C-alpha cells in the first residue's frame, strides 16, 4: 500500500486536485487545501522533506513583488471606468449609422467597434453589454437573423481577450516567464486576423443569405445634412487627407526609424490632422465638413488617444506594460471626468470591483503556489512531462493534444484558472520540445478565448443573455411587435464563431509567422526583463527554494525569480546586465538599449 502510494503520488495528487476543484468551493482555497493536505501527508509518510512548507511564505512574497501582475488592477480599473464613460455607446451609435445602410453593415460596425474597444481595454463584459443594449435592438428592428446578431455581438466582445492590452496575455506572460510586451506584439497580428475572419464570415452570410443581414433603410441615419444627404463625401475627403498626412510624415522620418515607432507616430499625426481640421471647422463655422464627418472624428478621438496612451507607449518602449496600464487608467479617469460621467459612487464602485478581482486572481495564484510546492516534491512535473513527451508526433502531437485539452477545459474553467493551474504544468514541456513560449502563449490565448463563447457556460453568452430581450416587446420606433431572443438562438449564434476560433488556432500552428512577424527578428530584450532582473535581485532567498519543475519559467510565484537563469541567451546582448546594483538605472539602461534594436 505504502509502496503504491509513494510511487504513484503524482497521479493521485492530480486526480485529487480535480476532485477538490469540482467540489464547488472557491478555486483559490481548494487548490491551497489540496496542496496543503498532500504536503502534510507527504511529510508524515516521509515522502517529502520536513522543511517543505517553510518555503511557502517566501513564495508568496515572490507573488507580492510581481510587477507584471500589478498591471491587472490597472487595466481592470481602466476598463471599469471606461465602461461607464459612454465611449462605447457613442462609438456604436456613430459607426452603426455610418455602416448601417450597407448590407451586413451593423454587423461590421459591431465587429469594428468591438476590436477598437478591445484595443483600449480588456474587459469582455463591458463590450458585450453595451453592444447588446445598443446594437442588438437596432439589428432586431430591421430584421437581422437573431443567431447572426447575437453571435457577432458575443464574439466581438471576446476580442478583448486577444487584442492587446488584455489581461489573459499579462497572466500568460507571467506564467510563461516571458515579457508582456513580447506577448502583446505577438498577439497583434493574430488579433486583427481574427477580426478580419469575423468580418469575412459576415460577408459570406450577407452574400449567401441576404435576408439575414439586411441593409438599413437610409432614413435610419439620423446624422445627416440639412438637405438630407448623408455627408459621406466630406468624410471620405477628410479620411484621405489624414491618411495622406500620415504617409507624408512617415516618409520624412529619417531612415532606420523602427517600424512600430513609425506606425504609431504617423497614425498620431494622421489622427491629429483630422482632429485639428474638425475643430477648426466647428470653431470657425466653415461648414466644410458634414455632420457625419465631424461626428466620426470626435467619436474616434477618445479611444484612439487611449490606445496611443497605452499601446503606443508600450510599443515605443516609453513605458512598461504595467505603467501603460496605470497611464491608461489615469487617462480613462480624466476622460470620464471631462464627460461628467465620473462621480464618487462610480469611482468607489470601480475601485471596489478592481480590488475584489485583484484579490481573487492573486489568491488563485497563491493557492496554485501551495499546490505546486507539494506537486514538485512528489516529482509531479516529471510525471506530466513523461505523459506529454511520450505522445506520438513530437511537437505537433503535443500542440494538438494540449489545444484539445484546453479547448475542453475551457468549458468549465475561465482563463485565470487555466493559466494558473494548467499552464505551469505544460509550459516546461513545451520549452523542452523547443517551442517558442511567446508563440505558445499567443496560441493558447486564442484558444482560451473560446472559453467565453462555449455554450452553455461561456461568459459572453451569459452577459448577452442578461441584456437581450427575454420577452416579446414593441419596438419604440416602428411600433412593430418584436419577438424575444431565445437562449437557443444565442447558443447557435456562437457556434460559427467557435469554429472560426478553432480555424485561427490551426492557422497559428500552420503559419507561426503570424505571431513572430509582430516581434522583431532579434530577441528583443526589454523593460520587463530589467524589472524581472531587479526583482530576482531582492528575491534571492526565494531561489533557495527547490527549483520549480526543474525548468525556470515554471509555475506561479517563482516565475520571475526563475527567469533570471532563463535570461542568459537573450541577456548576453544586453548591456544593462552587468553587475550594476541599481535597479532604476538598469531599467533606464535597458529601455535605451532596447530602442535602437527594434527593427
Amino acid at each position: 500500500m505504502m509502496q503504491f502510494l509513494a510511487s504513484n503520488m503524482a497521479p493521485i495528487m492530480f486526480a485529487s486536485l480535480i476532485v477538490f476543484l469540482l467540489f464547488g468551493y472557491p478555486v483559490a482555497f481548494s487548490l491551497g487545501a489540496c496542496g496543503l493536505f498532500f504536503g502534510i501527508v507527504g511529510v508524515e509518510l516521509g515522502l517529502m522533506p520536513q522543511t517543505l512548507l517553510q518555503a511557502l511564505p517566501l513564495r508568496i512574497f515572490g507573488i507580492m513583488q510581481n510587477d507584471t501582475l500589478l498591471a491587472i488592477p490597472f487595466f481592470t480599473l481602466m476598463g471599469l471606468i471606461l465602461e461607464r464613460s459612454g465611449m462605447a455607446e457613442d462609438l456604436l451609435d456613430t459607426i452603426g449609422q455610418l455602416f448601417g445602410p450597407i448590407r451586413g453593415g451593423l454587423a461590421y460596425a459591431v465587429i469594428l467597434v468591438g476590436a477598437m474597444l478591445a484595443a483600449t481595454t480588456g474587459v469582455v463584459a463591458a463590450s458585450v453589454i453595451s453592444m447588446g443594449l445598443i446594437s442588438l435592438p437596432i439589428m432586431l428592428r430591421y430584421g437581422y437573423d437573431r443567431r447572426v446578431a447575437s453571435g457577432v455581438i458575443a464574439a466581438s466582445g471576446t476580442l478583448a481577450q486577444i487584442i492587446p492590452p488584455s489581461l489573459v496575455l499579462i497572466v500568460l506572460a507571467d506564467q510563461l516567464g516571458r515579457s508582456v510586451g513580447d506577448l502583446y506584439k505577438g498577439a497583434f497580428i493574430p488579433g486583427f486576423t481574427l477580426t478580419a475572419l469575423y468580418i469575412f464570415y459576415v460577408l459570406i452570410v450577407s452574400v449567401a443569405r441576404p435576408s439575414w443581414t439586411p441593409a438599413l433603410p437610409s432614413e435610419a441615419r439620423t446624422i445627416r445634412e440639412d438637405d438630407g444627404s448623408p455627408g459621406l463625401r466630406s468624410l471620405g475627403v477628410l479620411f484621405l487627407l489624414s491618411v495622406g498626412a500620415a504617409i507624408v510624415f512617415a516618409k520624412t522620418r529619417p531612415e532606420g526609424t523602427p517600424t512600430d515607432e513609425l506606425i504609431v507616430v504617423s497614425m498620431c499625426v494622421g489622427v491629429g490632422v483630422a482632429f485639428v481640421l474638425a475643430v477648426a471647422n466647428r470653431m470657425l463655422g466653415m461648414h466644410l465638413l458634414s455632420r457625419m464627418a465631424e461626428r466620426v472624428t470626435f467619436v474616434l478621438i477618445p479611444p484612439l488617444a487611449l490606445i496611443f496612451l497605452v499601446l503606443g507607449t508600450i510599443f515605443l518602449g516609453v513605458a512598461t506594460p504595467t505603467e501603460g496600464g496605470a497611464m491608461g487608467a489615469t487617462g480613462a479617469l480624466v476622460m470620464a471626468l471631462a464627460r461628467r460621467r465620473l462621480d464618487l459612487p462610480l469611482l468607489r464602485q470601480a475601485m471596489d470591483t478592481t480590488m475584489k478581482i485583484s484579490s481573487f486572481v492573486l489568491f488563485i495564484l497563491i493557492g496554485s503556489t501551495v499546490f505546486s510546492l507539494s506537486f514538485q516534491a512528489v516529482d509531479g512535473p516529471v510525471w506530466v512531462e513523461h505523459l506529454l513527451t511520450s505522445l506520438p508526433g513530437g511537437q505537433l502531437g503535443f500542440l494538438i493534444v494540449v489545444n484539445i485539452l484546453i479547448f475542453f477545459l475551457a468549458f468549465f474553467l475561465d482563463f485565470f484558472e487555466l493559466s494558473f493551474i494548467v499552464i505551469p504544468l505544460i509550459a516546461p514541456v513545451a520549452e523542452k520540445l523547443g517551442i517558442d513560449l511567446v508563440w505558445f502563449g499567443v496560441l493558447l490565448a486564442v484558444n482560451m478565448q473560446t472559453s467565453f463563447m462555449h455554450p452553455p457556460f461561456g461568459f459572453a453568452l451569459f452577459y448577452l443573455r442578461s441584456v437581450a430581450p427575454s420577452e416579446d416587446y414593441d419596438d419604440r420606433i416602428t411600433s412593430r411587435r418584436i419577438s424575444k431572443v431565445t437562449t437557443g438562438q444565442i447558443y447557435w449564434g456562437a457556434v460559427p464563431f467557435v469554429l472560426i476560433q478553432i480555424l485561427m488556432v490551426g492557422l497559428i500552428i500552420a503559419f507561426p509567422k503570424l505571431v513572430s512577424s509582430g516581434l522583431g527578428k532579434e530577441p528583443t530584450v526589454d523593460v520587463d526583463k530589467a524589472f524581472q532582473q531587479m526583482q530576482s535581485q531582492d528575491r534571492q532567498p526565494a531561489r533557495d527554494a527547490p527549483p520549480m519543475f526543474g525548468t525556470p519559467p515554471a509555475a506561479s510565484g517563482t516565475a520571475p525569480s526563475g527567469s533570471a537563469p532563463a535570461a542568459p541567451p537573450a541577456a548576453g546582448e544586453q548591456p544593462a546586465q552587468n553587475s550594476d546594483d541599481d535597479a532604476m538605472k538598469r531599467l533606464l539602461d535597458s529601455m535605451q538599449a532596447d530602442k535602437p534594436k527594434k527593427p
Partner: protein
Amino acid sequence: MAPLLTLSRLIDRATEWVGRWVAWLVLAAVLISALNAAVRKAFNTSSNAYLEIQWYLFAAVFLLAAGYTMLRQGHVKIDVISGRFSKRTQIWIDIIGLAGFVLPLVYVVIHLSVPLAIRSYVMNEYSSNAGGLIRWPVFALLPLGFALLGIQAVSELIKRIAFLRGLIPDPTQKPEGKSDEEQLAEFMRLKSEAAAREQAALGKTP
C-alpha cells in the same frame, strides 16, 4: 448561537470597513505609477522608492481585501456540478470548505510568516535597491491579510451554521442583490433611455 451571530455581524462590519478604505489604495497605486512613468520620461529622474511603493500598495490591496472579497463572495468557484445540488448541500460544502480548506491554510501561512515579519522588524531590514523602502511593513502584510481572511471565514462559518438551523436567511445571496454586470447593464439601460428621450424631445421641437 445569538452571541455568535452578534460576533459574526461585528466581523462583517469590520471587514466592510477595511474593504472601504483599502479600495483607495487602488487609486493611489494607479496615480503613483502613472506619475512615476511620466516624470521619469519628462525629467529623466526617478527613484526605486516609487517603484517599490507600487507593489507595496498592490500587495496591500489583494491581501487586505481577501476577507472583504470573501464577504462579497468574490472568490470564484467551479459550480458546474455543485450548482445542481440542493441549497443545504451547497451550504455543507461551504462549511467543509471554510473549516477544512480556508482555516488550515490561514493557520499555516500565519504560523510560517510571523517569524519572518518579526525578524525583518528587529533587524530593521531595508530593500537592497538604492533608495529602497523599509521592508517590515510589507512582510507584516502577509500574516495580517491572512488573519483578516481567517476572521472573515469564522464569520461565514457562523452564518452557514445559523442558516442550517433556520436562524437567518440564506447568507449566500449576494448582499447587493445584483452582480456587477447586472448593475452595469442597468446603468447603461438608464443612460440609453435618457438619451432616447432627449432625442425624441429634440425631434419634436426642431
